[in-house]
């Protein structure tokens, strides 16, 4: 015990083995052929069984999630083809086959062919939802392509008749099983399209094994369905059977009866639908009439109809008011205009030149009078002054003095007044002036005056 071995738990080794197995891609997707034994369908939905052949056995399990769509019921002794992966159930340390898909053996190759064709056509877009035509709501005639014998045709016709007896049915009999089935179905679809009498086609047959249904998994049928101008309802087998035809059809019905139900509306439903439409029309019209009546009554109640005089009176009142306003406004502006005229007239009168003329004339008269007065006064004053000057002059006149006995002595020529005795000599001739004439005299003696003093 120099080198102690590493001790592992059971769980650890089981988990390791599981990891190893699950890591192997080859073990994860395998097809196995074997016979079922110890089959148990557990209440949980999972299926437990053993697959065996001459040389060995393998514990297998198919979970509910995978077996729900299983198109057959597995049982002990049944030979099957199973697809799945190998792994370990850790608790028991047992490796098991985990089945994801299963088919009864013998048709395994068909199943593979089905998957391949489905994938191919799907890739081509043959199953696209967008390519699917709507089924007419009220088909005028129904075409049925199926076997003229058997449950399917009976189910379809009985259901169509029950739901809508007035829709004509055109049956194109075909064989639905065997080698000739697929070409005959494809040809029938083409024929129905050529005749163009029906609005919808039901193509199908009753349920059966995968082999029995095989015609509906053939490419030629799928292509004929897609090429049909008339919408196609597929009706193949029972609910769990999906065929290529189902994928290609415009509508898939689980059974022939269901196809007939999808193809035509039910008479009773149509009658009810009609009654309902009539009700809706009556209700709509009733509502509209009610609204119209209400509008009419509303209008009729209007005071214009019930008391038309009042409306007139209101207008009359308005007219009066307007007239008043008009008058008021007119008078107002006329008054203002008159006032203005008066003011202007006053100003004009005030500026009247005739007054000025009178005034000026008056001033002129006054001035003339004053001038005359002044003139007369001045004249009188001057006359007075002149008179007094004259009188003064007169008083000073030498003649007056001479009249009082004085005389004036001039030289001979009466040019020079002789004032002194010294200006003359004896013998000179002199002229003496008296108040009333002249005397020519000669000086005879001179006598100077002695001044006292």
């Amino acid at each position: 015990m120099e080198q102690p071995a590493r001790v592992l738990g059971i769980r650890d080794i089981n988990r390791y083995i599981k990891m190893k197995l699950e890591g192997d891609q080859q073990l994860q997707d395998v097809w196995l052929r074997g016979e079922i034994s110890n089959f148990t369908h557990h209440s949980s939905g999972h299926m437990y069984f053993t697959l065996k052949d001459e040389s060995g056995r393998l514990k297998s399990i198919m979970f509910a999630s995978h077996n729900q769509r299983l198109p057959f019921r597995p049982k002990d002794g049944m030979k099957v083809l199973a697809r799945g992966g190998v792994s370990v159930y850790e608790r028991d340390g047992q490796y098991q086959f985990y089945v994801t898909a299963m088919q009864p053996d013998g048709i395994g190759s068909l199943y593979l062919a089905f998957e391949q064709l489905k994938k191919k056509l799907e890739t081509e877009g043959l199953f696209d939802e967008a390519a699917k035509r709507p089924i007419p709501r009220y088909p005028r005639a129904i075409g049925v392509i199926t076997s003229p014998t058997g449950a399917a045709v009976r189910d379809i016709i009985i259901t169509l008749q029950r739901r809508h007896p007035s829709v004509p049915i055109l049956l194109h009999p075909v064989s639905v099983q065997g080698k000739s089935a697929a070409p005959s179905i494809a040809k029938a679809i083409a024929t129905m399209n050529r005749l163009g009498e029906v609005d919808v086609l039901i193509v199908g047959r009753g349920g059966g094994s995968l082999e029995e249904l095989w015609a509906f998994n053939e490419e030629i049928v799928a292509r004929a369905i897609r090429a049909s101008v008339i919408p196609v309802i597929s009706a193949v087998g029972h609910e769990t059977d999906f065929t290529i035809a189902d994928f290609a059809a415009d509508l898939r019905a689980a059974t022939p009866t269901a196809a007939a139900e999808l193809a035509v509306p039910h008479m009773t439903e149509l009658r009810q639908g009609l009654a309902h439409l009539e009700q809706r029309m009556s209700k709509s019209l009733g509502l509209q009439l009610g609204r119209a009546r209400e509008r009419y009554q509303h209008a009729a109640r209007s005071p214009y109809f019930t008391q038309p005089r009042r409306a007139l009176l209101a207008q009359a009142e308005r007219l009066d008011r307007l007239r008043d306003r008009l008058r008021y406004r007119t008078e107002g502006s006329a008054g203002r205009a008159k006032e203005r005229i008066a003011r202007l007239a006053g100003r004009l009168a005030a500026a009247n030149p005739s007054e000025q003329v009178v005034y000026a004339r008056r001033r002129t008269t006054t001035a003339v009078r004053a001038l005359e007065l002044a003139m007369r006064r001045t004249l009188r004053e001057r006359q007075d002054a002149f008179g007094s000057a004259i009188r003064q002059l007169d008083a000073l006149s030498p003649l007056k003095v001479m009249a009082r006995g004085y005389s004036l002595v001039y030289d001979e020529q009466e040019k020079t007044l002789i004032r002194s005795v010294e200006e003359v000599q004896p013998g000179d001739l002199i002229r003496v002036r008296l108040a009333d004439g002249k005397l020519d005299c000669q000086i005879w003696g001179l006598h100077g005056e002695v001044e006292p003093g």
Partner: protein
Amino acid sequence: MSSNGETALSFEEAMERLEGIVARLESGDVPLETAIELYQEGMALSKLCGQKLEQVERRIEMLIEDGDGLQRKPFAPQRDEAGGDKGE
């Protein structure tokens, strides 16, 4: 509407017209006179559809291909089919 015009309509056409009339009436923006006309037409169409529903032709034919081409003959499903689904 003439009776000829009525019968010339297919059930589907009549139904479509009827549904169109109902939709127009329910929209409420149709003048009253038009609404009354539509109502009368709708009622006539409804009656026509009802009559068409009652026309039981029960015409079921099967195509048979022979030397001369396609022939037709009346078809009645067999009643004695065993093991079939319950049709009803």
